[in-house]
Structure formats: C-alpha cells, structure tokens
C-alpha cells in the first residue's frame, strides 16, 4: 500500500528530497534532522537537493521586512553595542591604510600582480621527463571585498613557501597578529601560520608544512584574519577577516 509506506522505505535520496521540499510531518522532520547530523551521505544528498530545488523560489517576489530586523539579528549575534558600527568592523581597519597609503599601495600591488601573472622565468620546476607541470605555480590575490588586491600570495614549490607581499592593516588598538588560512573546497579553514607584519607592510615567507602542501590547489581559498598575539587560540579563525582570495594556477 503506497499510502502506508514510510519515507525511508524509498531510500535516503528520496527522504532527502522530501525533507528539502518540506512535505514531512513533525516527527519525520525531526528524524531526518537527527540523521543529517549522523549520516554524511544523507547530509550530502540533502545539500544536493537544496541546490536542485532552490530555483523553485525564483518566481517569489522579494518583500522588504522591517528595517529593525537587521538590527535585531546583529544584536542577537554580536551584542547590542554593534548595531551600526558592526557593518564597518574590519573594513574600517582597512580604511586606515587606504587613506594613508592607498594610492601607492594599490599601484604597487597591481604592479606585483602583473609581474606574477606574466612571469619572466619558468613558473615552476620541471618534471623528470622535462614537461613543465601545470600545477607547479599557484597564485592568489587576496582582497577586501571588491577592492583592489590587498595581499598577493605566490606559492614557491621549490622551497615550499608561500610568499606574501602587499600592505596590511595594522592600525588596530588591540595587539593583533595576521594569520593566514587555507580553506580547501568544502573543508574547514586550516592555519598556515602567522604573518610577520613590519610597519604595516607584509613581506613575508610562510613555510607550508608537508601535510598542507596538498591543500594548496586551484579553487582553495586563502584568507587572512586578525588574531590575538600568538595566533588563534581555537585553531579556527576567531578574528575579523581582512582579506580573502581564491588560489589560481599561474
């Protein structure tokens, strides 16, 4: 009898579809949510169905909620003292170097970018058979939002180092230290280490541990957050993100 079949009797993918569509009753939804926490395959199926069915919302007309809603949400997340200023946050810290060194810094950053994109020498080591590997040269331009590159990062496979260049904000009242993170596609951020900050200009080489070299590849995201001296106490970014960018092949 079709009417008495349970959702799960049709397999996890159909249950995921029914959960995302929203046709399950309260107890079935709760069971699906428990499974979501425990069953990675099911969670994956749910994520795929979210992607498939999301465009069903295309015809829904946007409606503006009360302007107070944003303040309520930010107060709930960040505390009541951060209603208007929260939107400046780490962006404000970048305004500092923009207004002081902006023109020359951006010009320098772009110049470096051009040099990196059009390397004059070989981009990387040669394979034993003499064929240059396409994956040997990696490059990322870390930006603050849509702004010009803030920090340029180049991976040197010879030395296993990431070479960073560009200006970084260092006007913050509290002592902070920039920390570099890599986020492989679909994974959590992993620390690549702290960045030396000399008079507000990053000129640093970050050695990449053998276990992280494999994570450096096209599509991975590099990000810099401001952390307490000594680095993030939790192993995950805790402070504001000042620059983010995607790794590309040279």
């Amino acid at each position, binding site marked *: 009898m079709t009417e008495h079949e349970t959702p799960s009797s049709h397999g996890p993918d159909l249950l995921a579809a029914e959960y995302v569509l929203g046709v399950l009753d309260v107890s079935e939804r709760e069971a699906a949510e428990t499974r979501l926490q425990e069953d990675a395959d099911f969670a994956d199926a749910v994520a795929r169905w979210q992607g498939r069915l999301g465009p069903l919302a295309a015809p829904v007309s946007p409606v503006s909620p009360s302007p107070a809603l944003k303040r309520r949400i930010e107060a709930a*997340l960040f505390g009541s003292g951060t209603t208007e200023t929260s939107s400046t946050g780490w962006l404000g810290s970048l305004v500092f170097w923009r207004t002081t060194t902006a023109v020359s810094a951006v010009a320098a950053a772009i110049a470096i970018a051009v040099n990196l994109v059009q390397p004059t020498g070989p981009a990387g080591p040669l394979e034993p058979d003499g064929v240059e590997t396409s994956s040997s040269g990696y490059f990322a331009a870390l930006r603050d939002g849509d702004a010009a590159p803030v920090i340029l990062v180049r991976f040197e496979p010879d030395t296993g180092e990431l070479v960073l260049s560009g200006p970084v904000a260092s006007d913050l009242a509290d002592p902070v230290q920039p920390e570099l993170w890599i986020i492989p596609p679909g994974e959590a951020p992993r620390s690549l280490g702290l960045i030396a900050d000399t008079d507000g200009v990053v000129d640093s080489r970050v050695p990449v541990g053998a276990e992280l070299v494999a994570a450096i590849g096209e599509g991975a995201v590099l990000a810099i957050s401001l952390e307490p001296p000594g680095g993030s106490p939790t192993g995950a970014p805790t402070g504001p993100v000042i620059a983010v960018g995607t790794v590309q092949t040279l």
Partner: protein
Amino acid sequence: MDPERPKALLKQVSLGSRSAFSELYDITNAKLFGVTLRILHDRAEAEEAVQDCYLNVWRRAAKYDAGRASAMSWLIAVARNAAIDRLRRRRETAPLESAPEPADESHSAEDLVVFAGEADRLHDCLGALSGKESEFVRQAFMTGQSYPEVARAADKPLGTVKSVIRRALMKLRDCLEPS
C-alpha cells in the same frame, strides 16, 4: 545582483566577517522574507523565521558546500527550514486552514540574475513533468505544506499525492543530472 556575490560573502562569513554578513543580509533579505511570508502568511512570524535563518547562516556558513548548491539556493533552504519549523509548530497547537496561493509565475529581472541558468534548467525539467506532478511540487515548495495538507488542499487521496510527488522528485533529479 552578481550571482557569485552571495557565495563570496558566505565564505567570508564562515571566517567570521561581520561586514560580509551585513552585505549578505542587505542583498538577500527581501528575497528570503518573500519566501518565508509565502509560507507563514504573517509578517511578524515571517520576520522571526528570517531572523532564525540569518542566525543559522552565521553559525553554519562553514558547512555551505558550493559544489552542491548555489549560495542563493542554500540560503533559501535555510529560510524555508526556519519557516516550515514554525509552520509545523503552529499547526500542532492551532491548525489553520489557509488556501494555497497560486504560484507567481512572473520572474523578476533580479531573480533571473540570481539563479542564472539554474532556474531555466529547473523550469525545463518541471515542464517535462505531468501537470499534476509539477503543480504539487511547486505548491509544496511555495506553501511548506506537508503531504496530508497538500492532499487536503487538492482534494486527493494522501497516497495519490505521495506517489505523484515522489515520482516527480525522482524525475526532476534524473532530468537535472542525466546519468
């Protein structure tokens, strides 16, 4: 809106950027409120669902997988979950009879940009379903109704509605990702 923008912002939100969260809210809140309002038919409750949604977005942004769903689709899923949870709770205490609204078929220019080719593909695949199949799927999505509620609204047996929707979902999957 640049369809890639929500994705870039979600990545920054996952790293704790409040300004990215603020911008993400600014460019997506009206769409998500429209979605929760269609489900809850009550501005105050729909705003609470949007609030639940963005709290979850802040906490779970790192779980978003760009290889599985567009950022906008993921945000809509988080918003619909918040609205449906509220709808189910409300109906447990005071069942409401609300007539389903017909889906608004007009695509705004903005939506076409947000969903880009995704919406066109889904639209084509919905067009390949039978009339009842696409009608029930759209209605369930828009209203957040459970199987029994869809059946009651359509005045059809529950078993019929379940098998029509299940068949439609499997057809959609095969149409969107032909093996």
